[in-house]
């Protein structure tokens, strides 16, 4: 893509430089179905600003806590760090901040007036509640009707508790309700009230987000046996505290995520039982996420590939097995599901319990008495562009109209439907702009090899022998040090350097100081965002002040320093410490780590971006001493930072001395890689010297 030149005039018109980030997204954000500002919240988390992190997440993702547990995380799959070492464990960072903050620890954006139309929403799953939240934020009065006694949809009723505890779902539900979303549980639309009833009760629109609430079944001979379970009913029963009847030899038919959940639940019901899954697909075609399958196998679940069920074999009133046949193909040449079987290849698999987990379907009960028209194939008429059905004021969203997906996809679809309803109720034509800005491409190998390798933080998980017996969560999640370390692995894609072409003198300094050899100087310097590692080295060194960081407003650090100094008013001496927080936290941003009395610590992702001018400004703004806590050679996340930092500190000392100040009031401590205790001790000592002098 040809990028338009950026000038200082453009920046002046922008207001905030960070708006540049909207022009080209990082791939994590682009591929997130709700386009959460992943880089933004990971950076906030890296600095220990957890409240801010969860607010950034929740701006786009209502089901933050649920997704922290079960998201299929396309952000991680597309993380550019994957080409350096391993992707950032974004889901686990999200899990930590979402559960740490709970529902009360998140900002609620309830508009001052919620006096717009009433909207009824059928189904309190991710799609329905996301739509309700969006409408509530726009000033509507949404009411969500849920047939189950609890809200949350599939995450609450069918995702096993060992993967997703109910209290985690409750965090999201409570936060959404705090926005003025009314929730009525235990009401089944189509049975207790019809859609027409709702429209007659003063709701100006109805949104059906009923999901896929029923398991698909198979017309197998013998499948009416009580030990032949449908997966969704089976999982729901478990989640409501029942113990469905399962024997010692379970066969789960299906190869998807629900099949994995059912099989793993069977293991927990009877740890001594043999549990196997059987699917039409081969290993590569199996639809379950790779990690679901791996975890199932770790827990002892066997998988039989390329077999299709024929009939349940009964002996008296007992199930003794399942007759199966070979599968010759699952998909046709165009990739459509169209299994073909070899009826000469028959064999029996022993089992005493069968769980059918071959997919879900909609329960169309809600349509009873609605007047909605069915389209071709028995499905209700639905326009994907406007979310409308055959009645203009009845809308649809979520899995009832989309292919089965994940929680975050349902959230995205719910939000889109809410936009459609808003346009409809505002008397506008429903036209939703689904266009997205481009995203930053894969990191080039020659750049990737220069990036400091940092191992992904291990995720503490119960050993399979232990978790096989327990319905409690098996994946422990990160503690705070692990979250900070993991979040700091983020490469800040898309927040890097931009050249203001009107100021650039083509002096070549950026090209000379870039540790990644990214800038190219033709008429002026050009820094390709897809290559830039956002270290800020060129920004700190540019003699024309012609380079800015997309992710940082100009003068941000100076203002932040001035604010920190203002807070210290009345205290002498005032000491500012600029701390490279890549290895250990700074006691800035909410005081999550213990600081040193009389020292205001300011977090930097690296000292690469700290300029000598900024050091002088700290003194101008009232600092009596400034301490730079940097990494020694090779420990910094960006190459050559230690050397550049030393030179800048020396230069600033000379400049201070020229101005008649004590050059020793500026100190450099190269201990940032030695842990929080060492930083604290070194800061205390340095600050002590300052007050003594």
């Amino acid at each position, binding site marked *: 893509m040809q990028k338009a030149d950026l000038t200082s005039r453009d920046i002046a018109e922008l207001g905030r430089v960070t708006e540049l980030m909207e022009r080209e997204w990082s791939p994590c954000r682009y591929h997130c179905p709700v386009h959460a500002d992943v880089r933004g919240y990971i950076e906030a988390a890296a600095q220990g600003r957890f409240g801010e992190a969860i607010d950034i997440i929740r701006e786009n993702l209502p089901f933050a806590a649920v997704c922290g547990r079960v998201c299929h995380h396309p952000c991680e799959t597309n993380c550019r760090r994957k080409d350096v070492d391993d992707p950032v464990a974004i889901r686990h960072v999200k899990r930590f901040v979402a559960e740490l903050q709970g529902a009360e620890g998140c900002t609620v954006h309830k508009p001052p007036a919620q006096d717009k139309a009433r909207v009824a929403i059928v189904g309190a799953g991710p799609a329905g509640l996301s739509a309700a939240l969006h409408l509530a934020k726009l000033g509507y009065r949404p009411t969500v009707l849920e047939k189950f006694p609890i809200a949350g949809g599939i995450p609450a009723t069918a995702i096993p508790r060992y993967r997703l505890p109910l209290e985690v779902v409750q965090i999201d539900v409570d936060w959404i309700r705090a926005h003025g979303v009314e929730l009525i549980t235990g009401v089944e639309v189509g049975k207790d009230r019809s859609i027409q009833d709702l429209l007659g009760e003063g709701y100006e629109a109805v949104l059906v987000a009923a999901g896929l609430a029923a398991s698909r079944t198979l017309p197998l001979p013998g499948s009416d046996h009580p030990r032949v379970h449908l997966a969704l009913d089976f999982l729901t029963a478990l989640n409501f505290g029942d113990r469905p009847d399962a024997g010692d030899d379970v066969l789960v038919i299906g190869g998807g995520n629900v099949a994995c959940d059912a099989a793993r639940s069977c293991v927990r019901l009877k740890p001594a039982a043999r549990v196997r899954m059987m699917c039409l697909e081969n290993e590569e075609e199996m639809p379950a996420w790779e990690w679901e399958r791996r975890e199932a196998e770790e827990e002892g679940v066997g998988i039989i590939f390329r077999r299709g069920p024929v009939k349940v074999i009964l002996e008296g009133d007992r199930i003794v097995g399942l007759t199966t046949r070979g599968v010759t193909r699952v998909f046709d040449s165009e990739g459509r599901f169209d299994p073909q079987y070899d009826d000469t290849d028959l064999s029996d698999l022993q089992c005493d319990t069968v769980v059918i987990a071959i997919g879900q379907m909609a329960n169309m009960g809600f349509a009873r008495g609605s007047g909605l028209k069915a389209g071709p194939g028995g499905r209700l008429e639905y326009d994907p562009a406007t979310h409308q059905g055959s009645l203009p004021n009845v809308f649809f969203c979520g899995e009832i109209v989309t292919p089965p997906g994940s929680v975050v996809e349902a959230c995205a679809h719910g939000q889109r439907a809410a936009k459609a309803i808003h346009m409809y109720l505002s008397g506008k034509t429903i036209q939703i702009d689904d266009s997205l800005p481009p995203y930053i491409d894969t990191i080039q190998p020659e750049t990737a090899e220069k990036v400091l390798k940092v191992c992904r933080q291990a995720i503490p998980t119960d050993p399979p022998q232990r978790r096989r017996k327990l319905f409690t969560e098996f994946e422990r999640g990160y503690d705070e040090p692990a979250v900070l370390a993991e979040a700091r692995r983020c490469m800040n894609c898309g927040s890097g350097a931009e050249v203001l072409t009107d100021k650039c*003198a083509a002096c070549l300094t950026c090209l000379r100081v870039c540790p990644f050899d990214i800038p190219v100087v033709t008429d002026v310097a050009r820094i390709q965002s897809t290559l830039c590692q956002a270290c800020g080295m060129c920004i700190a060194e540019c003699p024309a002040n012609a380079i800015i960081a997309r992710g940082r407003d100009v003068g941000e650090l100076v203002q932040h320093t001035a604010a920190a100094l203002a807070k210290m008013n009345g205290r002498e001496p005032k000491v500012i410490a600029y701390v490279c927080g890549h290895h250990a936290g700074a006691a800035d941003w909410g005081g999550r780590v213990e600081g040193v009395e009389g020292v205001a610590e300011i977090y930097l992702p690296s000292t690469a971006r700290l300029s000598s001018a900024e050091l002088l400004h700290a003194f101008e703004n009232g600092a009596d001493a400034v301490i730079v806590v940097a990494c020694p050679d090779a420990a910094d996340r960006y190459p050559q930072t230690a050397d550049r930092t030393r030179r800048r500190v020396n230069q600033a000392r000379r400049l201070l001395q020229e101005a008649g100040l004590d050059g020793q009031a500026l100190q450099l401590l190269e201990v940032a890689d030695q842990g929080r205790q060492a930083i604290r001790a070194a800061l205390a000592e340095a600050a002590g010297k300052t007050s003594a002098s």
Partner: protein
Amino acid sequence: MIVAERKPFDEIVEMVAPYKKVLVLGCGSCVTVCLTGGERQAEILASQLRLAGRKKGLDLSVDFDCITRQCDREFTENLKFDPAEYDAVLSLACGVGVGFMSGVLPDTPVLPALNTTFYGAGVAEGVWEEYCHGCGDCVLAWTGGICPIARCSKSLINGACGGTNDGKCEVSQDMDCGWHLIYKRLQELGRLDELRKMRPPRDWSKNRSGGVRRLSREEMAEIAQESAE
């Protein structure tokens, strides 16, 4: 390009001492490239002056600005601050910029923060060296691209003097003899015969000795005149 270096800070402080409100003005061309007079240096100098002013208890307020070139009037339109509101402008341009801005801002004293040192080139990162004196009558064609005016301490035109010593200049043992360099270079090029050619006397009037030099490009100058009429 023009290379300049910053004046000693004390000298600058002395210059601005009579003034209370000073605008430090960077120049976005040559002096930005040689890291002495761009916007960043203006920012730093302004900061230093404020710190020094505070330390000495002076009533001094300092802002900074920068334009693309201080040697063309039009760029002053891009100034963010109005120099008329200042007691003095402290220019980080070369002498050309300082002098020109003095004409552009008739009511405001324009002070030089730099010493303009030479016409040079970047020979290594952060290092610049003199290559030309702007003598007005270039001889590089027959001196192997090495300027005798700039590189010979005496600006001799007819070969080395008696002070040449094993390739070094008598002025300093650290300095190459310009004519020695020229000879070696022409030897490498197989062009020593250039030194045997008779040359007419140099026209030194094109150098400074002819007074203020001026360039007028007829095609542009005429158009400008016509449009002015």
